[in-house]
């Protein structure tokens, strides 16, 4: 095998993408757990950890640029590097949404929940498992798995709609819930956005494997 050093650096880069993805998943889990248990200290930690995610995204970007400049990658190597640039950005944005949920928890203080949380934690579980699947599809170069992970965005959207309907009803019945219900809508919206960003990651995986840019959101219409 020629270009062993380059090969090694590419593998290391992929490892860092997966590690960043795991940190993002941890942030999502932490934010939702803080929301459920009203744990402001945990929310604060999740919010602060976002700086670290942002920094790691820039590092990934710089490593990509260095490899592009020094190795003149072609074909699948070129696709992997451009995919990493996109995926790192998508992961960083997911982290922003998780931190956004954490800040809502801090804002809500210790006010009791207007309703028991069922669907929001379910959305979070779904989103985290989609994220895991998308990154494992990236490492295994499995376009089929990426498409299946992206397809689960529909389930997240359906839950999001359901959460909205429920919270609307609650606000109509009892206007004193409006402030907190609005926060919960934002939390649900944040998770829904994270799922959309996961489908972007899935698109990049399909691009790496098959060389085609395909809109996985559009296809399911």
């Amino acid at each position, binding site marked *: 095998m*020629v270009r062993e050093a380059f*090969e090694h650096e590419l593998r290391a880069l992929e490892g860092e993408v997966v590690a960043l993805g795991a940190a993002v998943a941890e942030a999502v889990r932490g934010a939702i757990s803080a929301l459920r248990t009203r744990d402001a200290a945990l929310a604060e930690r999740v919010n602060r950890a976002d700086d670290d995610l942002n920094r790691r995204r820039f590092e990934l970007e710089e490593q990509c640029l260095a490899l592009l400049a020094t190795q003149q*990658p*072609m*074909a699948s190597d070129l696709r992997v590097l451009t995919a990493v640039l996109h995926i790192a950005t998508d992961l960083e944005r997911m982290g922003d949404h998780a931190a956004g949920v954490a800040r809502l928890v801090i804002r809500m203080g210790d006010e009791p929940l207007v309703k028991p949380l069922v669907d929001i934690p379910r959305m979070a579980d779904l989103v985290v498992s989609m994220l895991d699947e998308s990154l494992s599809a990236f490492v295994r170069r499995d376009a089929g798995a990426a498409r299946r992970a992206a397809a689960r965005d529909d389930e997240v959207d359906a839950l999001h709609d359901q959460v909205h309907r429920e919270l609307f009803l609650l606000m109509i019945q009892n206007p004193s819930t409006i402030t907190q219900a609005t926060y919960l809508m934002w939390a649900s919206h944040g998770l829904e956005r994270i799922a959309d960003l996961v489908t972007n990651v899935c698109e990049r995986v399909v691009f790496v494997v098959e*060389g085609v840019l395909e809109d996985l959101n559009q296809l399911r219409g």
Partner: protein
Amino acid sequence: MSDPGAPPILSTRAFSLWYGSHQALFQVTLDIAARQVTAIIGPSGCGKSTLIRAFNRLNDLIPGVRTSGEVLFRGEEIYGRGVDPVDVRRHIGMVFQKPNPFPKSVFENVAFGLRINGFRGNLAERVERALQQAALWDEVKDDLHRKTGYDLSGGQQQRLCIARALAVAPEVLLMDEPCSALDPIASAKIEDLIRELARSVTVVIVTHNMQQAARVSNWTAFMLLGELVEFGPTREVFTRPTDGRTEAYITGRFG
């Protein structure tokens, strides 16, 4: 990129070539689009130079060379009976790896092909135009008769050879590793020139430098062991090659 309906200017049909008992090309079938740049890439010994030399019958000069299949220029078989290789080379010019100017003045270097072809028009005008086309005019116009080809830098010598090839107004310009003896700045000038020339001439370039092929060409042919493995738009070949052997070569994971 190119008009798919336009007939190719140069084609091979199941073209094979042997040096004595050694087969160097295997059934190569390929169409070269007019006024486009086609790059031929591949590892040493893959047959890319043999193929480009077949396009203007330069292999004829090597004893023991035998061919089968066809090479067509504007639909006419250039290996056909009664075809004069000198006439073929007037339409299909060649620039070599190492600049090979003559030990004569810059002017005479460019005028050479016109003189031996019995050109009777305005020689000075044709020489100037060829030097303009080769982006050398401004650098040599004051010393046309005083400086010889040898007084020029390597990059200038190569552009002089390009001007010499262009003077007889060929329709196709073949370039066999035209930058391999040049420094990066001189190479970049030749690359710019190639893009410019493709407005009026069809360019076929053999290069070891994949980045160069990616930069200058519209079409890329990848050859391996005398076989044409893949041929397609350069953008496709360098971003999503269809053959695993092309992928291995252009990503540098060969052998």
